[in-house]
């Protein structure tokens, strides 16, 4: 039973990955990645990682992919045309550059795959051939939310806090990167009159006066 489920999920994983690499339209690439992530969650369940599988479906295939879909819909028109137009002609065409690029990518990928398989499977470790450690189901069994939560709040507390800070920094950075910038075009430089300007006397040492702007 688990073997059948493994092969079905593995086929989904590989098909999704190939779809991401091959498909032209970025929107279809995102959908292929969603299928890939859902199949991967099945594999995580087979490996007794229940909490990680749930996080994968909820956070990854849910939230992060929604972000992708929004950006593809926002950028989409221009991205599609450049992707299908000039890039499609160059990469999908029969020119020497395009075929050389594809051949180079395939050769490099094949070499990397052979090396990885030798490194992973050729080690001679006996545990790789086994089915894993003994497992007994229960409320605090391996991989359940209780188990992972206890590890996160005891042994890996520092990791947990650092990850939360990393998320905060990334959120602030994304807002800073994607905000509308003033002053690049030059026509947005006009002063904005705020209600405080009417109440406040001149030369009170505000930061606007410090940089030479008198309101």
């Amino acid at each position, binding site marked *: 039973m688990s073997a059948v489920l493994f092969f079905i999920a593995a086929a989904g994983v590989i098909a999704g990955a190939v779809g991401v690499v091959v498909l032209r339209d970025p929107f279809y690439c995102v959908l292929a990645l969603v299928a890939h992530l859902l199949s991967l969650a099945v594999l995580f369940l087979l490996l007794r990682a229940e909490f990680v599988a749930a996080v994968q479906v909820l956070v990854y295939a849910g939230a992060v992919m929604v972000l992708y879909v929004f950006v593809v819909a926002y950028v989409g028109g*221009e991205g599609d045309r450049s992707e299908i137009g000039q890039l499609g002609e160059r990469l999908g065409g029969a020119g020497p550059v395009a075929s050389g690029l594809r051949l180079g990518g395939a050769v490099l990928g094949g070499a990397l795959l052979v090396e990885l398989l030798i490194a992973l499977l050729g080690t001679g470790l006996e545990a790789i051939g086994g089915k894993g450690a003994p497992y007994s189901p229960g409320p605090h069994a391996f991989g359940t939310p209780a188990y992972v939560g206890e590890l996160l709040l005891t042994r890996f507390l520092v990791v947990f806090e650092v990850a939360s800070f990393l998320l905060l920094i990334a959120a602030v950075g994304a807002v800073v990167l994607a905000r509308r910038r003033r002053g690049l075009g030059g026509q947005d430089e006009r002063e904005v009159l705020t209600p405080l300007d009417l109440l406040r006397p001149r030369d009170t040492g505000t930061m606007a006066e410090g940089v030479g702007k008198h309101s």
Partner: protein
Amino acid sequence: MTIAWYLALSAIVFVLGAVGVITRRNPLVILLCLELMLNGANLALIAFARMWGNGDGQILALVVMTVAACEVCIGLGMIVAIYRRRLPIDVDELRELQG
């Protein structure tokens, strides 16, 4: 299924992501292929955690997911910024770092 099958599958997914990063030119698709590579690493981590019956690999996989979310956040912010500047969304034409 033995652990070796999962490791072979993780290697295949990683290589597919690497090939995508090398050959594609749309930064959005390159980010997606980076996700593929991270997912291959995640699958290997969880397979090893199952192999030893130890939860450390699962914690590391969760941290990798967090880092991937941060990377997506910053990368998509940069793509939106590029789009606002009316620059082409193609990594071959964005070869200058200066604004």
